[in-house]
């Protein structure tokens, strides 16, 4: 757009602004009411919101008051004891499972070396197919 076009555009703007001054009072009142309604429903300021306290504040263990320290220390202790218990239980289950396998292998009539023999495996498969 050349300078003449821009000048023309700004003259139109001036005319439009003059028209704005002639809006009826009922319209300007309604616009003011709309503005007030909008401001009342404004998105709350992030800074004005109270700081959200984390559910589990680790720093409180060293810096907070005695009650806050207990509030952090007790759940932590319970967590450590619980994890230790779970570990022990899993270890016992693992040992018991190995013992069961050992007992089953030792009690079997078939010698252990038979499982390493390819011919025996082929024999077992052919037996299964016939069944």
């Amino acid at each position, binding site marked *: 757009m050349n300078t003449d076009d821009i000048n023309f*555009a700004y003259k*139109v703007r001036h005319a439009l602004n003059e028209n704005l001054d002639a809006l009826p009072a009922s*319209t300007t009142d309604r616009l003011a009411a709309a*503005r007030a309604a*909008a401001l009342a429903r404004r998105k709350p300021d*992030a800074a004005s919101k109270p700081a959200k306290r984390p559910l589990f504040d680790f720093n409180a263990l060293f810096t907070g008051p005695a009650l806050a320290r207990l509030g952090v220390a007790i759940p932590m202790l319970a967590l450590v004891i619980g994890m230790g218990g779970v570990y022990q239980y899993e270890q016992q289950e693992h040992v018991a499972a190995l013992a069961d396998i050992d007992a089953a292998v030792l009690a079997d009539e078939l010698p252990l070396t038979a499982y390493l023999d390819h011919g025996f495996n082929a024999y077992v498969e052919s037996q299964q197919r016939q069944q």
Partner: protein
Amino acid sequence: MATDKELSDFLENVERRAFKQAVYAVRKDESALDIVQDAMIKLAEKYGDKPAAELPMLFQRILQTTILDYFRREKVRNTWISLFSGFSRQEGDDEEFDILSSYEAEEGTAAAESSADQFERAQTLRLIDEEVEKLPARQREAFLMRYWQDMDVAETAQAMGCSEGSVKTHCSRATHTLAAALKAKGIKL
């Protein structure tokens, strides 16, 4: 982030122009007022925490979307009306806004002008208003955002969802169309 006062000042500064923009688009004062109110509330509710510098572009975008939503609702409503009724839609609302009558109520600003001058000026302003309203929607949006809302090309492009080149083209065409139309009516700015 914009303060309460910045947001309030921004809305106060933009509300009347936004109303006229909506009137140009929907041609009904009541609907235009509803659209501006919706746009203001959406801006405050969803973007009230944005910096003041971003508010003009965001508001224009919301305003354009709200106007589009209005047309969509009207289209659906008209479809149902045409299905159930043979009567055409009443057009009475279009004629409620008489800018000349409001100019007669104007006081002080044109005290030095004679009645004939005032009448002529009011008529010129009304004709300009009408010609702006007659512009194709996209050209009008671009023209008003650029030269009335003081938005730059990039902001206008973002608000309209088009390229900066398209904004320049729309603005240029709108200016030439307006100039030709006003010249044809014997109006020289």
